[in-house]
């Protein structure tokens, strides 16, 4: 049988019941390419992230900070630990890009090397706290019962101790000579509770959904279910919180070293503290490390915001 209204035979799949693009009031809706393969949640998120200027800017800043932290020596010729009293308290210029401190340290060099301390403490603390939080939160939420009750109380105990306060007490307990990793560990021990709470909540809401029941019906064990179906679907809010936590840990580390609780490695917090007595004569010395700290923290907070918007379709619509 021949079709006479069209030069070729139309099968249902070839028909497009949409108006030409320039005639439609629903431009975005009709412009959707129905033949393209549907994207996963993560694909969709990545697609949206690349188009979000906030994400691009913060991601580039973080990459730059990471590069500086890895190779600070590439950006300066000065040794940040060598003070030259002959050039104490110099204004910017004369070889010293941002001037020198009272002790004759090169400010720019100290900011560069300080990146390393801040980022490594922040990064390690974020990783450790996320692991602790996810394990405890997932276990509590998934197993439930008295285990949940006990783990929730333990979480409350740590939640009742504010991050900086707990870290201060831990610091006084340790003798001097703590490594950067130990500082991160201390911060993580007092900073995992929000991750645990969020993971527990997300696991609770995911575990009762039909696809998990279906997987159980197909014979999947508890652990398989948790690892393959529950956690991947509950991890999005955890990633967002962990990103923001990284910024919080960096601020906490700076606060601690500002209070004199550090390990003597070059840190923005202790540099800010050192710059205070000279504020009248040389206010910029306080200004530069503060700006570095602010840029660093801001990048992670903005990254967290952008990732949350990308993963949350409700927020994206508006």
């Amino acid at each position, binding site marked *: 049988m021949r079709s006479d209204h069209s030069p070729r035979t139309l099968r249902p799949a070839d028909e497009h019941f949409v108006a030409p693009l320039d005639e439609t009031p629903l431009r975005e809706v009709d412009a959707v390419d129905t033949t393209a393969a549907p994207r996963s949640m993560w694909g969709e998120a990545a697609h949206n992230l690349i188009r979000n200027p906030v994400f691009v800017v913060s991601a580039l800043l973080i990459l730059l900070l990471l590069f500086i932290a890895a190779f600070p020596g590439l950006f300066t010729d000065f040794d940040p630990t060598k003070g030259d009293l002959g050039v104490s308290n110099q204004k910017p210029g004369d070889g010293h890009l941002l001037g020198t401190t009272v002790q004759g340290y090169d400010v720019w060099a100290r900011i560069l090397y300080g990146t390393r301390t801040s980022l490594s403490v922040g990064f390690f603390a974020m990783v450790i706290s996320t692991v602790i939080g996810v394990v405890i939160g997932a276990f509590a939420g998934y197993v439930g019962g008295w285990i949940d009750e006990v783990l929730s109380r333990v979480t409350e105990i740590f939640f009742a101790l504010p991050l900086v306060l707990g870290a201060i007490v831990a610091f006084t307990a340790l003798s001097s000579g703590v490594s950067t990793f130990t500082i991160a560990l201390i911060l993580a021990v007092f900073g995992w509770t929000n991750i645990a709470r969020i993971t527990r909540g997300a696991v609770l809401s995911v575990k009762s959904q039909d696809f998990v029941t279906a997987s159980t019906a197909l014979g999947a064990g508890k652990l398989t279910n948790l690892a393959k179906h529950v956690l991947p679907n509950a991890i999005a809010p955890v990633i967002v919180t962990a990103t923001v936590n990284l910024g919080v840990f960096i601020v906490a580390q700076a606060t601690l070293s500002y209070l004199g609780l550090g390990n003597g490695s070059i840190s923005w917090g202790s540099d*800010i503290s050192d710059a205070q007595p000279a504020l009248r004569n040389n206010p910029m010395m306080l200004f530069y490390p*503060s700006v570095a700290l602010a840029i660093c923290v801001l990048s992670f907070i903005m990254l967290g915001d952008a990732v949350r918007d990308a993963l949350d379709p409700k927020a994206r619509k508006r």
Partner: protein
Amino acid sequence: MIWYIGRRLLQMIPVFLGATLLIYVMAFYAGGDPIQAIMGDKPLSPAVQDQLRSQYNLDKPLIVQWLIYVGKVVRGDFGVGFNGRPIIEQIRDAFPVTFRLAIIAVVFETILGIVAGVISGLKKGTWIDTTLLMVSLLVIAVPTFVIGFVAQFTLGVKLGVVPVNVGRDASLQNLLLPGFVLGVVSFAYVLRLTRTSITEVATADHVRTATAKGLSRTGVISKHIMRNSLIPVVTFIGADLGSLMGGAIVTERIFNIHGIGSVLYQAINKSESPVIVSVVTIMVMIFLLTNLIVDLLYAVLDPRIRHAK
């Protein structure tokens, strides 16, 4: 309601015990031998050491020491500091100052944060919203000690509007700027929380219904939007009191305020474990109590939550 409060108080006991044990272990156990610390370089005869050990219960297992300590704390006895002065006296002198400071911070962050958050949420996408969001991001990113120091320098040293140094005269007036500085980061969080919450509620069906019924704009905002969007904000402010107490260490150091934070800071410098443990224990107690109050406030804000169990 009475039953609910009772149950919550009972639930607080294990959390309180756990938190004190944690602090106790960290401050006393990991800190090395206190008798060794007392004698310093001078050698002490073993007999004297043993006598001191039994006097301070150090010869007993750690858990017994802790139980003895908690038993005394419950009766209000926090022991004596290195200077021989009862710790509870030091805390009693310092606490009202920090309390005033924290109240100023909470009032400031609550009022300004909610007002700014409501404006930002209702005018989403306008220049006011963008400006407020930028300000909040900046405030979060710049650490409190920098904000505090710059505020002190410009307002106190350069302009002379506020006292640079609070010292002994911790009147409300003198604590105004330190209070602002203490609350400024939380202000940013309250703003952002309120904004998110407001935008969610503002598009809800009941709000459209209220508008359609002919209710005025202010009526809709105050009765139908605000009340429904304040619960997460109240939760945050309650939990925030704990971190304000921690933040007071920094603020009190900048403005030389003789509050609980400076007691703690000096104790840290002297490695004075008994004082550290006592101050942190009290802070934990305050934190737990404020959280209980917040839970009770839920019922006032949201009639659907009734604690009749």
